[in-house]
């Protein structure tokens, strides 16, 4: 008897769960093209794609729907990217239509393999709105950005004291001992780009000197030396005489607790921290005006063998529309990849202190390895303190 009932319940619930999606979606699934989107971003990004963007996109395009697949736990998009390259060689459908964030250069040989679709304004008209400096290879679709900037506590730092140039910043640090800190450069970009900014400063602020393919150990030593002097010079004036936290978050934590009143921080982390209340509401952001801190773009890409390539172009174009770009800025502090002039003037005015026309960069790999090693050998060398 009991088995009868449980079997019946089982069959009913199975039938119900099979039919459920049809009731919920309203439109018959067969009528819609499903775009398979791979994302390995942080939770804030993947949540946003699933809960905010997907409904927005499906409302604007009733014939399309998004299947957002989170690959973070399964070897990230690098693994999926390798699969796409393999599918290209086998001339089969890679079962991926869109990468939320994947720069083909992340997998050696992927960019040259032809597995990723070069895009232009014919395929994605809104690419015309994008900051021209951001497109490095034709397969990349820059769709959001984030940049390191200064976060400060406006209850402590008065508006006229907010540093506008590198020289201002150094003067402020020296004038307010113990009030500034950046994290260890190998543990977080917010610290790495503070160090990078010092390096740019002593090289005539010419960030084009440092390219992914022009590393030379002796040149690095020569170009970095001046930066070590600056950073060593300010160390006694840093928080706890140079107690560098082990990452972006521990730095924000020191700032949120009021132990310091100015730090270098990522734009998205600090904007989100402010909007969620994790950072005090007196937190304000500023960018150096002589040469801003480094930043970077998140690139989407589309496999050239994708089954729904046209739908993927539509999605890419949708991502670059001003309303979506504004939504990302409001929801998780992502900087737009399209020029600020395309956003609503109110929003642009709200962020005018942090907006910069330039987004300097610093190559990873050998250059940043030399930077980290040099920092540990020349700056953080203090002997044991209690």
């Amino acid at each position, binding site marked *: 008897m009991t088995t009868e009932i449980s079997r019946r319940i089982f069959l009913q619930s199975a039938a119900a769960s099979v039919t459920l999606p049809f009731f919920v979606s309203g439109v018959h699934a067969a009528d819609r093209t499903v775009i398979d989107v791979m994302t390995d971003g942080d939770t804030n990004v993947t949540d946003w794609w699933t809960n905010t963007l997907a409904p927005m996109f499906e409302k604007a395009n009733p014939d399309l729907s998004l299947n957002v697949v989170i690959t973070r736990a399964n070897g990230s998009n690098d693994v999926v990217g390798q699969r796409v390259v393999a599918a290209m060689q086998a001339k089969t459908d890679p079962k991926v239509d869109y990468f939320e964030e994947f720069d083909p250069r992340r997998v050696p040989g992927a960019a040259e393999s032809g597995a990723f679709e070069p895009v232009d304004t014919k395929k994605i008209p809104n690419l015309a709105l994008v900051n021209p400096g951001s497109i490095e290879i034709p397969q990349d679709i820059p769709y959001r950005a984030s940049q390191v900037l200064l976060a400060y506590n406006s209850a402590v730092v008065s508006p006229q004291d907010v540093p506008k140039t590198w020289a201002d910043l150094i003067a402020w640090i020296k004038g307010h001992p113990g009030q500034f800190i950046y994290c*260890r450069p*190998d543990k977080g970009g917010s610290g790495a780009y503070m160090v990078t900014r010092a390096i740019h400063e002593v090289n005539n602020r010419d960030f084009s000197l440092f390219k992914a393919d022009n590393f030379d150990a002796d040149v690095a030593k020569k170009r970095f030396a001046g930066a070590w002097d600056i950073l060593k010079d300010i160390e006694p004036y840093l928080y*706890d005489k*140079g*107690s*560098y*936290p*082990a990452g972006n978050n*521990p730095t924000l*934590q*020191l700032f949120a*607790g*009021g*132990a310091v009143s100015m730090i270098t921080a990522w734009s998205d982390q600090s904007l989100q921290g402010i909007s969620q209340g994790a950072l005090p509401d007196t937190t304000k952001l500023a960018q150096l005006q002589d040469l801003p801190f480094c930043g970077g773009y998140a690139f989407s890409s589309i496999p050239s063998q994708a089954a729904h390539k046209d739908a993927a172009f539509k999605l890419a174009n949708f991502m670059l529309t001003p309303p979506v770009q504004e939504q990302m800025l409001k929801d998780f502090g992502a900087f737009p990849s399209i020029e600020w002039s395309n956003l609503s003037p109110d929003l642009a005015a709200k962020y005018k202190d942090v907006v910069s026309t330039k987004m300097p960069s610093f190559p990873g790999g050998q250059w940043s*390895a030399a930077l*980290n*090693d040099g920092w*540990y*050998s020349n700056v*953080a*060398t*203090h*002997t*044991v*303190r*209690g």
Partner: protein
Amino acid sequence: MVASIGEISAPAGRRRAARQNGGALGLALVAPAFGLMILLILLPACRSLLGTIFPDGAALPSLKSYQTFFADTRSVSNLLFTIQVTVVTLAILLTIGLTLALYLRFSQSRFVGAIQIIALFPLFVPGIVISFALIRFIGPTGLVATTLHVLGISGYQTPYLHPSGAIIGLVWENIPLTIMLLTAGLAQISNSSIEAARDVGAGWFRILSQIILPQLTRSIVVAASLNFLGIFGSFTVPYILGPAAPQMMSIFMQNTFSERHDSGVAETQAAVTFLVCLLVGVIYTACVFRDTARNGKAG
């Protein structure tokens, strides 16, 4: 003990045969595990060690990589720092562990159960969690700082991002193991020997130094060496709570290997770390074997 009863009743020949059979079966049982250990740990370790002596297929052995290591001030200061942090942590751990273990063993109080649970609690908390929790607790604006401030005490120097921060975290993390080893050792000390000593007029200090501690030496050495190995190779806690420089060897090695991609240098660092740990491992093994041998004879 059961074996010794058997030995008394069994004739000598049968006893020897049984022991040989048991020995063969025992060896067969440990063989797969031992083989795996050789394959996965000893062989790669030997290869690495040889790699530091014969760099890049050189025919003649050379200690150049070690000379470079010991000539580099950063490497040496990191090694000394690691030893220093380990020794200080160990001293604090043993003091706290011994006090608590003695209390748990001899106290009649009804708080014993509760204290035991609290002492074992860190076992169930991952290191990364405790590190971030400790930032909030001992950090510059943490609970300790604010409480002291409310009490009107100023001048609190946070241990966060100082060596003492790493030491506090490591002590917290390793208390359960220490307590478990020491309470297990204390459980073997019979109440009657202590009562006998008390009967002939021994004070608590005499009982501790002449009855308890001599019988506890083995547990203390085991606790000390196991903790030494654990702390010497610890990563997460000193990484988050400790200073940027000097670094613990584990963090230094990780930096060298995955940041600088300098596997040869990282290998030398690992070999030096391994040799220090080997020294402690030898002490541990010697202690365990000596005791086993002595117990074997006694049985």
